C-alpha cells in the first residue's frame, strides 16, 4: 500500500468510524429509553385509575 493510499484509507476510515460511534451512542440511548419507558409503564400501572378510590 502506497503512502497516498494509506492517507486515503485513514480519511475514509475516520468518517466510517465516527458514523459507527454515533450509531453505538444512539443504540445505548435507545436501550436507556426502553428501560425508562418500562419504568414509567410500571409507575402508571401502580397508580389507581381515575375515579377509583384509593382505599379500594
Amino acid at each position: 500500500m502506497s503512502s497516498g493510499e494509506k492517507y486515503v484509507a485513514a480519511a475514509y476510515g475516520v468518517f466510517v468510524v465516527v458514523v459507527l460511534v454515533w450509531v453505538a451512542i444512539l443504540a445505548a440511548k435507545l436501550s436507556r429509553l426502553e428501560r425508562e419507558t418500562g419504568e414509567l409503564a410500571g409507575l402508571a400501572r401502580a397508580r389507581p385509575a381515575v375515579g377509583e378510590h384509593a382505599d379500594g
Partner: protein
Amino acid sequence: MSIAKPSLTVLASVAAALVTLSAVLIFVVAPEDADQGFSQKIFYVHVPIALTAYACFGLGAWKAYRLLATRGERYDLESYTGVHLGTIFGVLTLVTGAIWAKASWGVWWSWSSNQLVLFLVLFLFYCAYFMLRFSVEPGPRRERISAVYALFGVALIPVSFLAIRLANDFIHPTVFTRDGPQMTGEMFFAFCVSWASITLLAYVMYRVELAGKRIDANLRELREALQT
C-alpha cells in the same frame, strides 16, 4: 397546504444507496488526479463534509432565529440538534483536512492558512455553545440565550467559506472558480453524488437525533407527571 415529510426509513435507504454509489464513483469511475495522485480522493469526502458542517450550523442558526421570532419551544431542540451535528461534522472536517494536508503538502496544519484558522474559530465558537447551554438552568431563559449565541455564530460561516477565495495560500487551492469546477466531468459528478449522499446522511442523523431528544423530553415530563 403542508408538505408531508418523507419517511425516515425511505430517507435512510436512499442515503445508504447514495453512499454506496458515491464510493463506486470515487474509486472506480473518477480518474486519478495528475497532480496529487491517489491522495486527491480525500477531496470527495473532505469537501462535502465541510459543506455539510456549514449547512448544519446554518440550520441551527435558522431554527434559533425561528425560536426568537415565534417563541416556538420546539425550535430550541431543533437548533440544538443542528449545532450538535455541525460539531460532529466539524470534527470530521478538521481531521480529514489534516490528513489530506499531510498527504499532499507534508504538514498536518498551517496557522498561516486563513481558511483553516477561520474554520477552527467557527468550530470552537460552536463548541462553546454547549458550555453556555449546559451552564444555564433549562427553561425559556436557556432557550433564548442559546438561540442568540447560535445566531451570532452564523456570521462566521460566510467569512470562513469565502476565506479560501480571499486568501491565496498554498494549502487551499481554489477548485470552484467563475469558469466552473477545475476538474473533469467524472470527477465533478463523483463529487456531486458524494455531496448529496453526505448531506442526506446528515439529514437522516438530524431527524434521528431530534426524535431521540424529543422522546427524552417527553419521558421527563411524563415521569414528573406520574410522580406527583
